[in-house]
């Protein structure tokens, strides 16, 4: 069975796929989105909904983060309430003089690249976060760090796209690609053949598997992370608060377990507690060590948390990219194939920027930002030595 063709077929209905769909319909393109499971059922439903600039270093990732931030608070502001957008601000806490020195170095560089950040002393920190550990020696405050409820983002972006004619097919798994010579002209799925002018890989951590179907190498690997959710409480954590070591964890390529505290409240009153990073494939085996370390780190940062109940924990798989940059744009190795994946832990925040830039390129326009640094073909045709499997 072959369905009517569309201009764009998006593989993956997570935040990135939903944003691609939304912006493609705004460009006047006809769009179909498929997902192996329910929309947002993968990484998007297992994260914290971060829109951060504080953990970015200068470079193309920061440019994309800033571009996305402007969209969230600009042209998408009318939907802010439906996805619980909150400009809560981020605080990076240094507990030792040495980490304060590295934090200062990082924020000086960030400031040069337009990030709004203030260094604050221990007293000012306590004024912003009265319950934080008194052991902190200093901190940096990023007023632009924001948060959304990711499942609402996915649901509403897809609803917007559907309102402009997009079709969303959940529980539809891609089994192969349709070709005309070397050109990719659609996907074969469990719900029939779906022809399209362009096939967009928004498969998140499953992008390597999908790309293999298309015959191209894309070394995006799952990087597992845990989040714990507490009982609902009256507000006692007012920003996204994390330790200076988190930046190092984000930037490392180490595959073993790393853990640093990230603590923040949600509008529902519960507190989300992270974070851990480990490369264990798509394993669902519970790591008691990761949970223990997250709890120990969080209670060190906020001592009152010792008596707070955790109701549940969940884990998700971030789409890790070996050079910490996403893959966005046309794949020169396979005509008709495009990518929008590999954002690791920043995919919710950068979803809208990614979607808008890719839609511009798909519609034949020059994107607002240069996509060259995100070239999906940059990893070459084989796994680099020492890279993730």
């Amino acid at each position, binding site marked *: 069975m072959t369905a009517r063709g569309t201009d764009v077929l998006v593989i993956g209905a997570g935040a990135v796929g939903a944003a691609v769909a939304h912006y493609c319909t705004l460009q006047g393109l006809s769009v179909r989105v498929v997902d192996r499971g*329910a*929309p*947002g*059922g993968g990484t998007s*439903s297992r994260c914290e909904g971060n829109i951060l600039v504080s953990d970015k270093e200068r470079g193309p990732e920061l440019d994309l983060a800033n571009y996305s931030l402007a969209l969230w608070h600009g042209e998408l502001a009318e939907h802010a309430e439906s996805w619980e957008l909150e400009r809560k601000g981020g605080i990076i806490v240094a507990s030792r003089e040495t980490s304060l020195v590295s934090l200062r170095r990082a924020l000086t560089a960030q400031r040069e690249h337009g990030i709004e950040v203030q260094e604050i002393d221990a007293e000012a920190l306590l004024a912003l976060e009265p319950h934080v550990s008194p052991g902190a020696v200093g901190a940096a405050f990023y007023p632009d760090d924001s948060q959304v409820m990711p*499942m*609402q983002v996915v*649901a*509403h972006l*897809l*609803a917007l796209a*559907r309102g402009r004619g997009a079709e*969303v097919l*959940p529980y539809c798994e891609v089994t192969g690609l349709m070709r005309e010579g070397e050109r990719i002209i659609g996907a074969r799925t469990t719900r029939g053949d779906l022809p399209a002018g362009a096939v967009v890989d928004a498969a998140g951590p499953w992008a390597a598997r999908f790309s293999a179907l298309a015959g191209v190498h894309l070394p995006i690997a799952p990087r597992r992370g845990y989040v*714990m*959710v*507490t*009982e*609902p409480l009256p507000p006692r954590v007012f920003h996204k608060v994390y330790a200076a070591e988190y930046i190092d964890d984000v930037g490392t390529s180490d595959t073993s377990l790393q853990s640093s505290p990230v603590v923040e409240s949600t509008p*529902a009153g*519960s507190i989300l*507690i992270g974070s851990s990073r480990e490369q264990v494939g798509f394993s669902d*085996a*519970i790591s*008691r060590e990761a*949970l*223990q370390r*997250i*709890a*120990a780190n*969080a*209670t060190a940062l906020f001592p009152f*948390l*010792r*008596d*707070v*109940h*955790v*109701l*549940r*924990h*969940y884990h998700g798989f971030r789409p890790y990219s070996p050079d910490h940059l996403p893959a966005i744009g046309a794949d020169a190795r396979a005509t008709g194939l495009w990518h929008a994946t590999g954002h690791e832990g920043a995919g919710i925040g950068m979803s809208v920027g990614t979607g808008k830039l890719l839609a511009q390129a798909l519609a034949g326009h020059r994107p607002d930002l240069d996509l060259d640094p995100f070239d999906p073909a940059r990893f070459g045709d084989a796994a680099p030595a020492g890279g993730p499997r």
Partner: protein
Amino acid sequence: MSEIAAVVVIGAGPAGLAAAAEAARGSDRVLLVDAGPRLGGQFWRHGAKDDLPQAPAPRWHHGWDTYLELRTDLERAEAAGRLEHLASTHVAALDVREDGLLALHLALSPTGEQLTTLLAETVVLCPGAYDRQLPVAGWTLPGVMAAGGVQAFVKVQEQVPGRRVLLAGTGPFLLAAAASVLQAGGEVAAICESGDLTGWVPRGASAALVPGKGREGAQYAALLVRHRVPYLRRRVVSRIHGTDRVESVEISRADDRGAQVPGTAQVLEDIDVVGLGWGFVPQAELLLQAGAASRLDVDGSLVGVVDGEQASSVPGLFLAGEITGVTGASGAVAEGRIAGRAAAGRVSGRAAESSRKDASARSRHRLFASAMHRAHPAPAGWADSLDEGTVVCRCEEVTLAEITAARDELGARDPRSLKGVTRAGMGMCQGRICAAAMTCFGTDPLEAARTTAKRPFALPLTLGTLASAEEGTE
């Protein structure tokens, strides 16, 4: 705990007590872990004085003799150093390790001063069940309880939670709960049974299989007649009224799907307590954590798949009692005995001695339970006439309107998406109360039941407890 336990029995209700007693005959390293301070579980829940020597049997209990026998068996095994009972201990999580051992993560109290890991060669999981609830207008008012909660109150407090009680829902348990209220000196305004009980002949073929059930039923019937309690078939609670707490209850006729028939409402005044019960939901979180195979039972419950020895699909993990299908206490005891023997036999390498008596009791009780479940289905039409504004998830205060909007306008058509978009089931009870309601919004009932029963911690744990977790025998 430095050594590896041979058999750990989780739960000290009828199934768990029987499993522990039998396991201790075949093994000298048996541990019985239970959240309660005393043996007995929900079914034989009792106060401290009921355990004193020569204490009279509490009048609201059935099978108290069986409890006393099992308790004596366990005390002997404990005295002989073959068994240890860890009371007030919660199993927060159950993992299957790569070496085949089962790891239990124990919290030593609800707040859990410390989380310890206990390793076991085999586990007999007997976690029991809790009341299945369905939303109805006014069900968040103080005074509205689960029917099982009403009975538990009587068993422990030896008094009624309110003077005049209405029991509603479906199933014979409503009769048991009503009897407890009457025996504790309370008044039962009525019992509303949503079914019409066609095809259910209490003295028919299935009841003949388990004479005890017939006797129990006859005793309830006599008690209800004596107290002139109206037993209303095909009636459902359509609205609970009250300002600060329950004051009156509107009941309506129910159609074939259990939905309210408009225009048939009748108000029962002067009600203090409403006990609602739509059957029981087995506590499946540890089963799912261990990755054991599960299926839907006749009553829509998610239960574990077992073989003739009560073994689950996970090597070393045995299941007994309501977790294999809601059959009641006597069936649970039979299953517990079989499972306890099989677990000890697996450890010793000696094949478990089979007992035809237990196996036959097990099949009779299962047959009886299936007939009972078929006669008392949780009504498919419960939501048909529900007010849009009715709260479905009480913890996160999510209304029916919000859930249907997420489904119809945002395309959230499965329980997991609905939960993610609306937060229904994410609160303090982790979806225990709204699970039955939320599974009705899914297209795949088995997947829906698994989604709503999946809980990575079986109880809330403090971060202090989690931070102090030690790996025990690693």
